[in-house]
């Protein structure tokens, strides 16, 4: 027996799942029979009550979300799900109590490319949705935007210079105005 709590991203919903053994599970009190086989690291055939699903999953690219956040693709409809085990929930409570909430302050390049334009300066206050900089890759210009209000602490990126995937571009301090 193992308990999990699943939350489809963008909803308030909480789905409770109990894995009873390797062929039965209880999902929101519905008992299901299942079997599955991985056909690659990220793709599996899943049969639930004899109904076929080909499922693809992508992990969250961020380190701390890697084990809990999954993009699940069935029939090319993609849903992001947060899937937590009992242990995850415990760990979360534990770290919250210690006030150890991690905030993302490093903006890294999502792909290799070249910096076309930097719209911000060090010390500048930036509102959610504003464009930090424009990155060119694969013949397309892409805007990197602020996910929340913040202040630019340091800029590492330089215009016209190429960057590698994962290279740090900006360092933020979370906005005090929040």
């Amino acid at each position, binding site marked *: *027996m193992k308990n*999990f709590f*699943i939350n*489809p*991203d*963008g*909803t308030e919903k909480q*789905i409770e*799942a109990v*894995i009873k*053994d*390797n062929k039965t*599970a209880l*999902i929101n009190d519905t008992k*299901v029979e*299942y079997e*599955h086989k*991985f*056909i*690659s*690291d*990220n*793709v*599996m055939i*899943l049969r*639930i009550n004899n*109904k076929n*699903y*080909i*499922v*693809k*999953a992508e992990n969250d690219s961020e380190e701390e979300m*890697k*084990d*809990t956040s*999954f993009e*699940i*693709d*069935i*029939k*090319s*409809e*993609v*849903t992001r*799900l947060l*899937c937590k*085990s009992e*242990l995850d929930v415990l760990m979360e409570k534990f770290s919250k109590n210690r006030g150890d909430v991690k905030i993302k302050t490093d903006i890294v390049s*999502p*792909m*290799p*490319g070249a910096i076309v334009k930097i719209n911000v300066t060090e010390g500048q206050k930036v509102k959610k949705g504003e464009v930090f900089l424009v990155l060119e*890759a*694969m*013949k*397309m210009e*892409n*805007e990197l*935007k602020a996910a929340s209000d913040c202040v630019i602490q340091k800029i590492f990126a330089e215009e016209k210079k190429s960057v590698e*995937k994962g290279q740090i571009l900006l360092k933020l301090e979370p906005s005090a105005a929040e």
Partner: protein
Amino acid sequence: MIKKILIANRGEIAVRIITTAKEMGIKTVAVYSDFDRYSLYTKLADEAYHIGESPASKSYLLADKIIGVAKKSGADAIHPGYGFLSERGMFAKMCLDENIKFIGPPHTAIENLGSKTKAKQLAIKHKVPVVSGTEKAVTDIEEAKKIADSIGFPVMIKASAGGGGKGMRVVKSEAELESSLRMAQNEARSSFGDDSVFIEKYVDSPRHIEFQILVDEHGNAVHLGERECSMQRRHQKIIEETPSVIMDETLRHEMGECAKRIALASGYTNAGTVEFMVDNNKNFYFLEVNTRLQVEHPITEMRTGLDLVAEQIKIASGEKLAMTQEDVRFKGASIECRICAEDPDNNFLPSTGKLNYMFRVLGNGMREDTGIEQGNEISIYYDSMISKLISYGANRETAIRKMKRALRDYKVVGVKTNISFLLSLLENEAFVKGNYNTQYVERYFLPGLKEKKIQLDNDTEIAKSLASILFKESKQEGTSAKVSSAKSGGANSWLKRKTEAYR
């Protein structure tokens, strides 16, 4: 007849050209950059030559080097594909000088049609409708007023050196004209260092409809019908289809004849595409000629039963067209979707990486043009297209149905793709009714998509929840030491049982 073709391109279009050449018994020569050393098309060709580093400017754009390979390998023709050198008059000229057949129009036609003003003048001369406007640049407000009045509002102000929407302004009435002109000029000056602007009639939310033409070297031309390419985002086509829902026999004939007229007037030969804007009242305006094979050419092939690459090769060999306009038959409906490595949830950012796994089942009525194999990498050097899926059916509904099925059964692991985005477009009411234009995706569809609530039916919710658990568990099996020590025996033995079940 041509005996050996060098393909001055890469990826799916190189594969496309090589397959037809092989069918015709013609030898093929591939060229590759560092990145493409073992790409599918290089293995498919009879011979393959390294031409440089991965960036296109150091390989696929090196005209001299490519012509050198053609001579060394004894190729008597070059097919440029699309992009890269395909629309450079210079390259066609170099081929001519080296006595290598360029499979495309003569360089003079590329140059005639390459300049938008020249092409427009040619169109006017041959009674092909164009968007009315100034032929010379305007700087003076009085002159601008006079022109705008004679065309009628709304008008569009466009930087003559422009591109990418910079220096462009729509003006709805005379009251706005002066300030808009000033702003457009400021933008044009700061972006291009040139503040001359044009004024032309503004066509609101037009459709983009293009005509495929074939012209032989003996003055014969046919059109192969239209392609509706209005599903665009930032001027990038997403879905193309033929026929267009707004097309009727009369309009098709009229537009097709215009397309042929402008091609013949410019001295064009080989395959080409004439682009038009079409407004709400089915008025059409000539835009430009693409002097190459288009990405979306397969839908025309499906509906006419022709092989456009074979036609290109035959025309380049000096053959007469085997058909007249009356012989061209249209049958059924075809749709193309471009599957790209990009993330629709993150502003369509290109997604690079290795395609660890691909799973797809084409089935009846589907065609796939791709240059990619499982294990390949999507790089920053070239465009992000993974594959072109092309569906064909007796009618539009069938073609849509087949496409949706194929997209649902298409899985790519390793990079993000636009597959779910394509599916929601195909399921959208505006697409189903064919009621869309070039503004549709950005102005209506994307904003609506963000507001769309996630709705899962009960079965799917259960399947997705269970799947997330199984993926989570499989991830942790690799690093299970730490998990099992933290947990009591329960989880550990559960994991063990699970592993045993798959021996």
